């Protein structure tokens, strides 16, 4: 079975004159792993994720998704991605059900209304994140944590083999962060999908993951969170 994610000597810089954001990164992630990707802001986490998802072409080396070149991955409908909050259409007057239905686009076909099976998958995804009672509520009327749950349900609605969440706890209070971590751990067990949880702050999922990547221009640590060297370990879990 091919690796879910494989990077071979990947380097990347925004423009030829700019210093490289990532240098000579090697990475292998098995299918079904739940991995936290941490590091300071500007350390290259989001760039790493964009290369993994095939949104950016590495300037050196090669990136693979399930054995295929990431930029030409043929089963994109199996990728679930929750981008950072500022990129989302948060002020669009959409209900939870409308947001989650958008996650069924690639898998459910582009033309016409959703079929019955797709609608059932959407309802199931809404229920999984605990928002069944709010399915017809506009997103703007929900708390930050509930809005993030809606977008996680959107990513789940595509029945992903790889789920990538980029800074999912930004603007979410501590209680909601803990609840989100419990939810993600539970979903990971149920779905058996590969999950990449990207955050400059990983305290909330520290107990849920067995593997932590620390990214600072490259991968400077790769192992269990408990083995993170003290010089990088802030008691507040904030690695900014």
């Amino acid at each position: 079975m091919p690796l879910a994610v494989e990077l071979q000597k990947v380097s990347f810089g925004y423009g030829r004159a700019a210093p490289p954001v990532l240098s000579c990164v090697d990475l292998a992630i098995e299918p079904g792993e739940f991995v936290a990707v941490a590091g300071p802001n500007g350390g290259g986490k989001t760039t790493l994720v964009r290369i993994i998802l095939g949104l950016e072409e590495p300037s050196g080396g090669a990136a693979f998704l399930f054995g295929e070149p990431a930029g030409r991955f043929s089963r994109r409908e199996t990728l679930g991605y929750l981008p950072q909050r500022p990129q989302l259409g948060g002020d669009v007057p959409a209900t939870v059900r409308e947001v989650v239905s958008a996650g069924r686009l690639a898998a459910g076909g582009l033309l016409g209304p959703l079929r019955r099976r797709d609608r059932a998958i959407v309802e199931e995804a809404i229920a999984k994140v605990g928002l069944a009672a709010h399915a017809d509520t506009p997103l703007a009327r929900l708390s930050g944590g509930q809005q993030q749950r809606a977008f996680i349900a959107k990513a789940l609605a595509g029945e992903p083999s790889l789920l990538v969440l980029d800074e999912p706890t930004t603007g979410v209070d501590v209680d909601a962060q803990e609840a989100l971590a419990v939810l993600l751990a539970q979903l990971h067990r149920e779905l058996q999908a590969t999950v990449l949880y990207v955050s400059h702050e990983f305290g909330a999922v520290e107990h849920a993951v067995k593997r932590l990547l620390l990214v600072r221009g490259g991968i400077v640590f790769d192992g269990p969170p408990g083995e993170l060297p003290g010089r990088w370990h802030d008691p507040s879990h904030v690695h900014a």
Partner: protein
Amino acid sequence: MLELEFMRLAFAAGSIVGLLAPAVGFFLVQRRMGLIGDGIGHTAFAGVAAGYLLGVSPVPTALAAAVGGAVGVEWLRARRTAAGDQALALLFYTGIAAGVVLLSAAGALNADLFTYLFGSILTVTRGDLVLVAVLGLAGLAAIGLLYRPLAGVVLDEEGARVAGVPVTLLNVLVSALAGVTIAVSMRVVGILLIAALMVLPVIAAGRVAWSMRSTLFLAMGIGLASVLAGLTVSYYGDLAPGGTIVLLAAGSFAVASAVAAFRR
């Protein structure tokens, strides 16, 4: 009023425009590109001028210029050659400058031009109506068929791109539809005012709507009502139809805001 053929033609064309403009504008407003209609209007102005210079009907030339300009802006945005507002500025100023130069070359800088800039209920011909009906209904059908992917891209463009949705193609389609809307609407509302009919009903609907879909349908209803009421008022008051329609659409925003405040 309806015993007059030019009014029947204006109402028929206006009904389609009243539904199409907010439907297309809905996706532009949600992507924070509400002002692109103005830029495309300026390009359409250059197309009208080209029609005068070539001695052909200005409607097809305006259509070609509007769609070309709209797709050009999207291309510049997608290639990150220029930021959104810079691409719009390029379109705005190149369009208006080209229009003035072409019109002066054609010796057509005269009052007849005003009918394209601000609309005129006297100028809608049967030929215009056929073009408005064919392109307008095709545009509405495209939006109906592709509503889900278009809405999905509005909600989360990056997520849709990762999942393999043809985001660039859908964005180009919306821009092209904006070009078509402006070209088919210029006889009724006018090039300089049609962008308002794409935007005002949407932001008015957004004050009282409860979902994306309800925003779209409410905006189309407000657009249609503004056009029908505006044409009627302009007929009896002997007023410019484009301005009257847009003022009524602006009034709908005030009403919607009052309703929203009352419900709170």
